[in-house]
């Protein structure tokens, strides 16, 4: 009975110390667990990586096709898997990538055609489901003033997981029988551009030119314009 009050005091002090030291420590750790909650944040991080790979591949292989994109991006993903595991604690499987594209695509003068790269990553083991579409509509025409000018009207948009992104086109050139001609890009509004190419040789000597368009992210789209 004599020590009952003292025991209560010691108990109360213990609870106080516990409150001010252990609980904040535990709650900090809980926040750290919250930090590593990858469900909502990893999709954007993986999307950034896939866009990097797309830019790297389309820049290195200017005349790529669907098979090149699929193979190179899968190889890059496999070769960097240790890096992803070190930073994201996940193993991204290259077999979960699917890329489809309609390139190469022949676009006739005065007609409109759509070029796209569609990339998706779906993983059942970890909650990642990424869908990205880089879509461009190309309408080529010729204006003859002092010089013959190939004029290409372009709309260019990204869609990533229902997020519409207006990534600016920064570079456009045509390959005319091995001669590279850079175009002057005029931005009409957020997603539409007019690109002017002065043709280096008379139009009647040309049957087709290859058009390349590079955006600020480094991704290149290409197509063949038929001038016949």
């Amino acid at each position, binding site marked *: 009975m004599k020590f009952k009050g003292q025991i209560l005091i010691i108990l109360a002090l213990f609870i106080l110390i516990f409150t001010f030291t252990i609980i904040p420590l535990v709650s900090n750790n809980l926040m750290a667990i919250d930090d590593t909650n990858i469900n909502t944040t990893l999709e954007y991080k993986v999307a*950034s990586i896939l866009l990097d790979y797309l830019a790297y591949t389309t820049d290195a292989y200017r005349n790529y096709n669907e098979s090149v994109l699929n193979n190179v991006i899968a190889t890059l993903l496999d070769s960097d898997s240790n890096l992803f595991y070190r930073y994201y604690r996940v193993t991204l499987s290259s077999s979960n990538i699917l890329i489809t594209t309609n390139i190469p695509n022949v676009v006739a003068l005065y007609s409109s055609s759509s070029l796209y790269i569609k990339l998706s990553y779906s993983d059942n083991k970890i909650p990642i489901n990424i869908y990205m579409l880089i879509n461009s509509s190309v309408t080529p025409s010729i204006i003859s003033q002092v010089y013959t000018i190939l004029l290409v009207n372009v709309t260019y948009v990204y869609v990533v997981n229902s997020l519409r992104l207006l990534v600016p086109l920064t570079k456009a050139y045509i390959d005319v029988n091995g001669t590279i001609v850079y175009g002057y890009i005029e931005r009409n509004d957020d997603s539409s551009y007019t690109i002017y190419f002065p043709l280096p040789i008379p139009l009647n000597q040309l049957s087709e030119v290859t058009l390349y368009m590079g955006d600020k992210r480094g991704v290149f789209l290409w197509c063949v314009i038929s001038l016949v």
Partner: protein
Amino acid sequence: MSKLKAQGKILEAIVAITFLILALITIRSVSSGCTILTTSKGTLRDAVNKVMFLLDTYGHIDEYLRTRDPINLELALSKLLPNIHYKLTIVDLNTSQLILELGSPIKTPFLEDYYIKPRSAFYNNPILVKIIISKEGYMQ
């Protein structure tokens, strides 16, 4: 003497109960504060992640790696994070070299997020892009 002892015991008991009540109140306030903080942090982290994704997708990081001029990156950050203090750093993961440091030092409470760019078209080595933003104004 026994009366004094009895008063002492009563006093001890009162002090102990007071401590217990204080402790319980503190536990409640700390735990409820943590709940708010965690919820806010999750939402904010989502937003920061999206900001970093936009920054990267619009090509501002790649543009910096290509030109080494941070002006457009700074403009984009001021648009994406209006009136929010931030510190953005880019580090080469192979050499541990600091490539870029933007913004000002951030006091607590802050939120930190990062992502890796394993293979940019404009830089040879993998890089880590890290952002720290001030959480002031986001706690309520």
